């Protein structure tokens, strides 16, 4: 059984159809990539999973539970951590406060302190800057911070929207390395990425989304010429 099951989801903004019946599944411990052009509906799909947009049709279930009536914070408490595009660091809060807010839903779980120590171990630059406002961090450090914050929730599923956007190649490689090491702890990942090669290398399975619909899906899209075509349009228009 899938951890996350998205079934024929349709989302509209007024007369604009953002998702036109998308089905997608993420299994336990699996990394799944979702790739596609700008405006294809990738971010909308993630927002739909978090309950930030209303479904016109279809359903989403997580860990066997329907998410229909759950509000965003309840979904987070169920074990879905979401790192939105543009990161979503709380710039006014210190690095420490950002990380601890990740564990907000766990209330006073004594294991929070251990997880905190582990996150700092994983991302040493954060340990040196605990008291600084998060807004003063560099782009790469902020990406580490939001990844660390997501881990503080002890998620079952991690939704990552464009984690490498705007990062230098070396730092991006570092982030991808972290993502792949996460699955060893049993976390599932749904990854939206513009760097299709990196995403496809990381993920066992992938979906290509075009204009609100799943155009391609499968385990081995890395060498599929159709992926390249959908990006570079080698077939002329007329």
């Amino acid at each position, binding site marked *: 059984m899938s951890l996350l099951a998205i079934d024929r989801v349709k989302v509209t903004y007024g007369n604009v159809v953002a998702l036109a019946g998308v089905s997608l599944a993420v299994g336990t411990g699996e990394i799944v990539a979702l790739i596609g052009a700008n405006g294809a509906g990738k971010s909308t799909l993630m927002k739909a999973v*978090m309950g*930030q947009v209303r479904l016109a049709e279809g359903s989403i279930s997580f860990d066997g539970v329907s998410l229909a009536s759950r*509000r*965003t*914070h309840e979904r*987070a*408490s169920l074990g879905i*951590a*979401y790192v*939105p595009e543009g990161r*979503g660091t*709380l*710039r*006014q*809060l210190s690095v420490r*406060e950002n990380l*601890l*807010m*990740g564990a*907000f*839903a766990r*209330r006073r779980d004594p294991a929070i302190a251990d997880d905190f120590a582990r996150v700092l171990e994983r991302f040493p630059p954060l340990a040196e800057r605990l008291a600084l406002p998060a807004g003063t961090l560099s782009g790469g450090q902020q990406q580490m911070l939001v990844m660390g*914050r997501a881990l503080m*929730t002890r998620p079952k599923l991690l939704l990552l929207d464009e984690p490498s956007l705007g990062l230098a190649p070396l730092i991006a490689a570092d982030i991808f390395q972290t993502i792949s090491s996460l699955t060893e702890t049993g976390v599932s990942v749904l990854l939206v990425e513009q760097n299709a090669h990196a995403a496809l290398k990381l993920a066992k399975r992938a979906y290509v989304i075009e204009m609100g619909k799943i155009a391609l899906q499968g385990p081995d899209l890395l060498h599929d010429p159709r992926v390249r075509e959908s990006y570079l349009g080698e077939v002329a228009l007329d």
Partner: protein
Amino acid sequence: MLLQQLTNGLMLGSTYALVAIGYSLIFGVLRLLHLAHGEVFMVGAFAGLIVVLWFSLGPFAAVFGGLVVAGILGIILELVAFRPIRRRGDNYLAPIVSSVGAGLVLQEVMTKLFGAEQQGFPRQFAGAVYDLGIISITSTQIFIIVVAFASMIALHLFVTRSRLGVAIRATSENLEIASILGINVDFVIMLTFAIASALGGIAGVLVGLNFNAVSPFMGIDMATKGMAIMLIGGLGSIYGAMAGGLLLGVGEVLSVAYLASSYRDAFAFGLMIIVLLLRPRGLFATGIGEAR
């Protein structure tokens, strides 16, 4: 002489700060100008007065009464006048309209209940005068300063040390991110209203004690000054509101002493215009709420 003025200014300013903090807290979580906050302050003052007049209790009980009643009123306002609007989408004018309406209701209901006249605390509340040589200060003034600063310190500790307090700051910066992290933002907004209103209620009692006058219309002046302070301090900044409140209090007292006394009520807006010309986003710019 100057020291005396500074003391008086700090006392006045600390009550301004308490009211302005309320505006900033509420602006932070809802990006909303809460135009009924002055009336919450006024209801708090009446609550303190009633505790004293009807139950013959002391000033601490009065402050506690103001805090509790205003806090509950804040929650009611959020549930009745603001939450239903949020549920129906984002018309940015609607919550402002609603807060004007709530303010009108509170003002008239209090007028009908307690009359439009000013009322004062019993005589024994004036307190003893301590002459410290360079300054003289009454026990009431000491009480006001102690309570106001203790409230601000308590708030500071709450928003930096407690889980819920940090959650308020997180929600204030970005409501969507807060909810992604598992924070129930509706609860946090209600909590913020309760705290902001409770601080307003405390300020109401303190101002009532200071001027020995409570009336249904005392909220209007305080509201306009509170809003000016919020701009001076920077929209949504708690510490900006504290600094702005103290600055205005001291400035007002000094302007009365050394400039034209009758223009003191316009001083807040003069200061606001000067600060905005020099630092358009206020003393402690947060960067939140630039749009709309």
